[in-house]
């Protein structure tokens, strides 16, 4: 269906060029949004094409995030790159490290006369895809952050409120839910939710060099007592029946929540739309819990998801077209449409306000939780992280966390391995950067 739509859009674009003015500039956009999200991307692009007559943008679905990035890089090496490519959070270091492969979005916009003020963006969104000077390199596109979804019916039956701290979960919420005959907790992405955002939520340093933003000779600082204690607690909760783990797959962990077998699930704020379509119980969401024993002033989390990068190697006219699309994407209308259709957070404060005025959050209070969490006070280590070979580092984390939760390794052993292998990968990445 996506292919069909893409084809027909492409065809329509072709016809428009053939029939109408020859002055139209055609540009290409490679993305990784399949299914329902892909339809929304196509809609967004169609709206852009209809909003002006100078440029025609063609969206192309390229598979998963990893496949899209690999395809774009291979195309770049062959000189056939798209004008715009969607790159996910863990791939950011690869793209941003390759200076000359992309044009920083801030530079692109100002060169093409588009006003740019980083303060227009929601706090947690601003600096994840920026360089060490705070210049925005990639335009945040589908942005989400981990939040706690809960089955309101199940919590009511057990007579508890959603927890704000992990202490509360361990002592009150978890045992009460277990007592009432439902599994209390599951989550879908241990590296993202319980590692990267764990550090951000507690304002702990995740890596040297300012979380990796200031250089490539970075060392990961993942082997921290607070996170080791967290994983020890997870293993204990699993033993006691308070926490269920269904493997590394995202959906395997989300399904039991949607089936009503698990009362609370940690997932992406972007999961909101899908859950609302599928479940028949009352659900809502709240912010990611924190450990009161670690901090009494929890900080914001940062965005996950992906950003759009303008690739280099095009003439001024095509770059102007890319800038025009980015400008359109930042507009309140486009942001509100994207936010309400998909559940991803709006990236500008203006769009957030507009969605509020339309009454979106009165109808769906859970849709606002992610934005509120991204707008919490910032700390020294809450802007994100920048580490090379991060896809593999996440793979190492997933492997070792699996070993903890299947009883193959102790928490201390696992974290020593993660630290050693991640630092080895970072060192290798530094080598590839010359």
């Amino acid at each position, binding site marked *: 269906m996506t292919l069909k739509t893409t084809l027909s859009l492409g065809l329509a674009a072709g016809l428009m060029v053939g029939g109408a003015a020859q002055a139209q500039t055609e540009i290409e956009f490679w993305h990784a949004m399949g299914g329902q999200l892909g339809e929304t991307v196509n809609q967004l692009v169609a709206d852009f094409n209809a909003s002006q007559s100078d440029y025609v943008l063609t969206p192309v679905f390229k598979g*998963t995030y*990893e*496949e899209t*990035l*690999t395809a774009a*890089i291979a195309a*770049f*090496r062959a000189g056939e790159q798209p004008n715009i490519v969607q790159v996910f959070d863990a791939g950011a270091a*690869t793209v941003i*490290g*390759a*200076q*000359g*492969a992309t044009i920083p979005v801030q530079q692109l916009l100002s060169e093409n006369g588009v006003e740019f003020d980083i303060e227009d963006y929601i706090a947690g969104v601003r600096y994840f895809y920026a360089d060490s000077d705070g210049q925005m390199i990639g335009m945040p596109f589908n942005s989400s952050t981990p939040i706690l979804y809960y089955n309101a019916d199940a919590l009511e039956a057990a007579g508890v409120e959603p927890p704000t701290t992990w202490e509360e979960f361990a002592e009150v919420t978890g045992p009460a839910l277990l007592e009432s005959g439902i599994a209390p907790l599951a989550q879908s992405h241990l590296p993202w939710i319980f590692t990267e955002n764990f550090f951000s939520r507690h304002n702990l340093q995740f890596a040297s060099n300012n979380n990796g933003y200031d250089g490539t000779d970075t060392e990961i600082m993942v082997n921290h007592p607070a996170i080791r204690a967290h994983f020890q607690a997870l293993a204990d909760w699993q033993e006691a029946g308070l926490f269920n*783990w*269904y*493997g*590394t*797959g*995202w*959906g*395997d962990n989300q*399904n*039991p929540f949607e*089936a009503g*077998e698990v009362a609370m699930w940690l997932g992406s704020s972007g999961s909101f739309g899908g859950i609302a379509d599928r479940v028949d119980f009352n659900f809502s969401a709240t912010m990611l819990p924190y450990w009161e024993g670690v901090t009494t002033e929890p900080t914001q989390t940062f965005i996950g998801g992906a950003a759009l990068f303008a690739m280099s190697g095009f003439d001024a006219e095509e770059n102007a077209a890319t800038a025009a699309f980015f400008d359109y994407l930042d507009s309140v209308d486009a942001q509100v449409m994207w936010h309400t259709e998909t559940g991803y957070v709006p990236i500008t404060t203006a769009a957030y306000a507009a969605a509020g005025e339309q009454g979106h959050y009165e109808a769906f209070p859970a849709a606002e939780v992610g934005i509120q969490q991204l707008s919490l006070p910032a700390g020294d280590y809450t802007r994100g992280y920048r580490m090379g*070979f991060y*896809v*593999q580092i996440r*793979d190492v984390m*997933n*492997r*070792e966390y*699996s*070993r903890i939760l*299947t009883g*193959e390794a102790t928490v201390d052993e696992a974290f020593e391995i993660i630290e050693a*292998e991640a630092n*080895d990968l970072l060192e*290798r990445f530094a*080598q*590839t*950067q*010359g």
Partner: protein
Amino acid sequence: MKRAAFGHIGFPILLLLPQLVIIAIFFYWPAAYAVQSSFYAQDMFGFTSTFVGAENYTRLIDSTNYINALNFTVIFTVLVTFFSLGIALLLAVKADKVIRGAKTYRTLLMWVYAIAPPVAGLIGVMLFDQSRGNITQLLAFFGYEYRLGVNYWDTASAMIVVSVWKQIPVNFIFFLSGLQAIPQSVREAAMIDNRSGTSRFWDITFPLLAPTGFFLLIINITYSLFDTFGIIDTIVKGEPGNNPLTLVYRVYVDGFRGGDLGGSSAQSVVLMVLVLILTIVQFRFLERRIHYT
């Protein structure tokens, strides 16, 4: 053979040229490139490239993770090859004896051959799914909690079962035609000499099937090593985690998913050498004991 068939040396070379060009472009050139890049650390965009000597190889030897994948690949290959050959042979021998409705029966047995590996993997995922899988529910009925994607060997067994299932029809077709190529007179003569069906099979039928079996052995080992990629990818859902991985899948994970071109190239060179050794061993030692008629 008459050597005078071609008047000039240029003509046969010209005839061979298309084939040689194809091999050079699709095999020698990429292989040489892989060997070269296995000695470098390269950024994905190809902007910088640093010579690192044999470091990409020494890292592999030191990596327990890589050694685990190597061990699993050996176990996986042995089991998949053994079971897909064994079951296919059994089915072929039995199908050979069927007289009524033979064609329908054989067609049904070959059907699975038409399924693409990712589709086979997807069917496997559905059968073995943690909460909804039929086989999971069956095992739960017998008191075993089967957890695909959580328990290492549970996941491994799903990969092996699906891979075997997918490969049986190919082996079946070859074994069946091999059986049908055995002359009726030989069988009748054997029947006079020996009344036991089992020993007739091992003394007469099996040796006569050996050329087919040897060919299938190579095909099956190659299948287990390389063609099961789609099945493994679907079963692990693109997230390696703590799941069992074969060497080929690791090449993909590190190279295409992770962007480590040098390390990934080193792995494919190792794989290339392993397959080369395996093939030499097979042809040198095994083939000598097989008699073609």
